[in-house]
């Protein structure tokens, strides 16, 4: 135990409050906050250096007290507060628990009789007892506005140092005071020794001079008296001198005659004895005072001697003795005086410095308290230090710091909120994506979706238009986060609503646009690609609302086509209501075996590597061309790998969505199989026509048409006769050639361009002039050229330009218009009068 602990121990028995390090917590009186309280108590106990048992006991008592406050003082009502104030001293931990609820009669609570509890099966009311058991002192005070329960718990070891200040558990002011005290002591001590030495030398010299002067005076006066033998006068002189201030110090004063007899002596008992010259004292020779050191029976002394003269005649000697003891008395007095002075100076300066240091260090302690409060999580701490000195600056910096931390915490919370919102958005988005791949006869479908780190706006979906017709939509919402997800939800609902039974892709998109546009925020839009696969009729129609082109890979010729029907993005507030539908084109395509369609979002082509290069369309086309044998699922997997390899660790910026569709067998075969199965159901299996039609989901009218064909030509009659549907798009390399030619010769007509290309390649490769015209028109460059292949920038100017060009060049819309295609039920659009070659229908 060190001095401080000892002092603290002593003071703890005095009716004095020891100095404490204080901690404070205020919580709502709710059960859930008991955990917060426990956590706080744990930390305070750690700070106090409690043993685990002490911590456990203190926690238990405070927990009991707070539980009681919640149950009884507030009766379980919400809105109450509990304030905890804990103070650590050197010897104990004091906890004050304040509540503002109903007080209770602390005195009336008696220790429980456990056997009685056992007898009656009681279980409550043990809390207070427990508190009293584990605490050393418990006080309860009820005030008008609050109740205080004060608990004391002695600590077995002193708390650790407050902060990591070097030098143990002494406070800064104590350390400063101790240091300065040591310095002061050293200074005063050396000053003391110096002064004592000097002062003593001075006193001794003074003394010597005094005695010499005195003796000289006595000698000059006594000379004549000796000559006159006036003994009485001599005796009087000696008395006078020894009684005088200066003479008081003399141990003896006497005069002797030349014959060795005392003429007078301060010591009367010696007067009639003969003078014995002590060893070391020689007879005086010349005039003047001489000093001799001698040993007397009373210790060492100095004998001062002077001869006596009368009229030039030596008549005797006068001797005066100054003992060392009396000298020491003199020097001791001097020493004592200096000692008192020095002690006084030391004490006053140490006290003064201590007080000064307290004054100087006070602001530092305030700062310390502030930092401690902050370390316990109270960021509202403000340190009030008025001074303009370094402490004032430090306090100001601290206050700035806490408010900055508070701000950044608010910022952090905001960030967390945004992150949570993003998470919600992502969750919404993920629930929107289809869970499983559809199985549709004759087609293979593969799809991949990879979300960017932040929520991107991609969305894709599959749904059955009718039992044999599948709709696939791929969309990219311009906005991200929750608003983007909300739009996506709207689009998805609208798509699912409108897709059912409607076999015209453009019509569905137009209706979806009608649904959502008014609800979408200005500036937000959605690009969509919608494709409808009719498995029974082996026909595919599709429309695009400003989306990236669909890629068609023709297995037979190994050519790649970009299919990009016209259309505004969904959600743009167009000046005229029907502008959207008027601007949209519906295209059709029939696939042959090993053809593949790839629908994608710009996340693919704009995937970036660390060098900021984009993946681009070229790489995509290359990959398609190099892998004709892959199934769609394998292909999208391959594409994923290729993109991963390309980006190589660069962060994904946008969602990536790819849907690939591949024809598994010849369309005619599928149709033939279907018709054959239908006929067989009736002819071989003996089903009624109605039952067979129900099973195959067609109308009896259709059955009878097939039946007629079957009856007329047998099995051969069931084979579809219609011509193959041409692709209404130039092959991709020819597109480039057309663009080049149109650039070089803006005066060329589409036919001339077609002829030129025909000349350059084999005649069989000569493009259809109509396609060239359509292509140039679509590019918006019958006169100027636009080689920019970036779909974003291609899309943007079109939105502005399209209404004008449409009116100027487009043929009058087909009467089919909105209701458009005989989508309803079993009617097969291919065999409708719309005919074979016409694939683009402006709806």
């Amino acid at each position, binding site marked *: 135990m060190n001095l401080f602990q000892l002092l603290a121990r002593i003071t703890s028995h005095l009716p004095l409050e020891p100095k404490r390090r204080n901690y404070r917590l205020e919580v709502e009186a709710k059960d859930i906050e008991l955990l917060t309280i426990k956590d706080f108590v744990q930390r305070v106990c750690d700070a106090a250096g409690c043993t685990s048992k002490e911590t*456990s006991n203190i926690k238990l008592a405070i927990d009991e007290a707070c539980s009681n406050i919640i149950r009884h003082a507030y009766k379980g009502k919400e809105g109450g507060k509990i304030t905890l104030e804990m103070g650590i001293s050197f010897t104990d931990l004091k906890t004050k628990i304040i509540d503002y609820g109903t007080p209770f009669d602390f005195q009336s609570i008696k220790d429980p009789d*456990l056997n009685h509890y056992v007898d009656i099966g009681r279980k409550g009311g043990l809390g207070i007892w*427990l508190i009293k058991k584990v605490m050393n002192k418990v006080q309860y005070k009820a005030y008008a506005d609050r109740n205080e329960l004060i608990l004391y718990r002695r600590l077995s070891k002193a708390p650790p140092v407050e902060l990591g200040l070097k030098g143990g558990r002494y406070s800064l002011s104590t350390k400063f005071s101790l240091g300065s005290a040591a310095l002061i002591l050293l200074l005063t001590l050396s000053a003391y020794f110096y002064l004592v030495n000097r002062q003593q030398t001075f006193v001794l010299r003074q003394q010597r001079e005094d005695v010499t002067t005195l003796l000289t005076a006595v000698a000059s006066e006594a000379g004549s008296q000796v000559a006159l033998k006036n003994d009485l006068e001599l005796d009087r002189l000696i008395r006078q001198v020894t009684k005088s201030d200066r003479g008081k110090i003399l141990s003896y004063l006497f005069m002797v005659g030349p014959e060795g007899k005392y003429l007078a002596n301060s010591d009367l008992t010696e007067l009639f004895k003969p003078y014995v010259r002590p060893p070391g004292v020689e007879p005086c020779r010349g005039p003047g005072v001489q000093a001799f050191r001698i040993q007397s029976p009373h210790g060492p002394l100095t004998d001062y001697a002077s001869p006596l003269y009368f009229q030039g005649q030596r008549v005797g000697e006068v001797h005066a003795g100054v003992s060392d003891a009396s000298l020491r008395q003199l020097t001791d007095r001097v020493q004592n005086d200096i000692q008192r002075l020095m002690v006084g100076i030391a004490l006053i300066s140490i006290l003064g410095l201590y007080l000064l240091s307290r004054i100087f260090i006070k602001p530092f302690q305030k700062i310390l308290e502030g930092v401690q409060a902050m370390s316990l999580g109270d960021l509202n701490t403000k340190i009030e230090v008025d001074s303009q000195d370094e402490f004032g600056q430090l306090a100001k910096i601290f206050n700035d710091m806490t408010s900055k931390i508070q701000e950044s915490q608010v910022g952090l919370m905001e960030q967390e909120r945004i992150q949570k919102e993003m998470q919600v958005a992502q969750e919404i988005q993920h629930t929107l994506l289809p869970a499983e791949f559809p199985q549709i006869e004759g087609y293979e479908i593969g799809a991949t979706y990879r979300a960017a780190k932040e929520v991107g706006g991609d969305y894709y979906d599959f749904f059955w238009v009718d039992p044999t017709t599948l709709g696939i939509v791929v969309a990219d919402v311009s906005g991200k986060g929750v608003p983007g997800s909300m739009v996506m939800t709207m689009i998805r609902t609208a798509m699912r609503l409108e897709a059912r039974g409607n076999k015209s892709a453009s019509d569905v998109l137009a209706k979806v646009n009608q649904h959502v546009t008014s609800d979408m925020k200005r500036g937000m839009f959605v690009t969509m690609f919608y494709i409808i696969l009719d498995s029974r009729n082996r026909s595919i129609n599709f429309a695009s609302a400003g989306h990236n082109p669909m890629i068609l890979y023709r297995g037979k010729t190994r050519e790649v086509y970009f299919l990009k029907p016209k259309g505004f993005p969904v959600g743009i507030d167009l000046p005229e209501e029907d502008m959207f539908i008027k601007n949209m084109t519906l295209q059709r395509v029939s696939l042959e075996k090993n053809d593949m369609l790839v629908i994608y979002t710009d996340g693919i082509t704009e995937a970036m590597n660390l060098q900021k290069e984009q993946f681009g369309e070229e790489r995509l086309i290359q990959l398609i061309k190099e892998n004709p044998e892959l199934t769609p699922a394998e292909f999208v997997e391959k594409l994923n790998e290729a993109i991963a390899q390309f980006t190589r660790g660069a962060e994904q910026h946008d969602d990536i969505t790819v849907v690939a569709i591949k024809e598994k067998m010849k369309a005619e075969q599928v149709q033939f199989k279907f018709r054959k199965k239908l006929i067989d159901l009736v002819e071989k299996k003996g089903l009624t026509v109605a039952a067979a039609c129900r099973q195959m989901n067609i109308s009896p009218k259709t059955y009878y048409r097939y039946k007629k064909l079957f009856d007329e030509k047998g099995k051969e009659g069931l084979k579809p006769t219609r011509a193959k549907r041409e692709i209404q798009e130039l092959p991709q390399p020819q597109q480039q050639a057309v663009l080049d030619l149109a650039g070089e010769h803006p005066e060329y007509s589409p036919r001339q361009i077609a002829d030129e290309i025909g000349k350059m390649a084999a005649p069989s490769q000569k493009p259809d002039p109509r396609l060239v015209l359509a292509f140039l028109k679509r590019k918006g460059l019958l006169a100027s050229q636009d080689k920019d292949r970036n779909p974003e920038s291609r899309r943007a100017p079109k939105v502005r330009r399209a209404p004008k060009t449409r009116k100027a060049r487009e043929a009058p819309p087909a009467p089919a218009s909105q209701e458009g295609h005989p989508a309803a039920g079993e009617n097969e659009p291919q065999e409708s009068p719309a005919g074979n070659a016409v694939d683009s229908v402006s709806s």
Partner: protein
Amino acid sequence: MENITVNISEHPQNRDITLLAVKGFIDTTTAPEFEKKFLSVLGEKKFKLVVDLKDVNYISSAGWGIFISEIKRIRNQKGDLVLVGMNPEVSEVFELLEFNTILKSFPNVEAAVKKGFEKP
């Protein structure tokens, strides 16, 4: 909130002894949950109970109350309730509250099964 879990099982050798292995802490917030489980065991007429407190770091008065409130009923049914594996902190309170005069405690389940249910 998973602040308490109570695992109830039969002792593999002595089928009439029921083990309640408690994990977490028992205070005012978790005591009702523990009491529910405890009473359900009594409801099944199982009265030889070993409460394993090895994974309990803290028991407040609400918890202790539960143990003694039912002890008479348990003993009337010729059963008993013994506590095992208390850690030093819990054990200290157990003794401070003089519960050791009412309930038996053992260092582990084996000792409790061996000696806990002998006739006094």
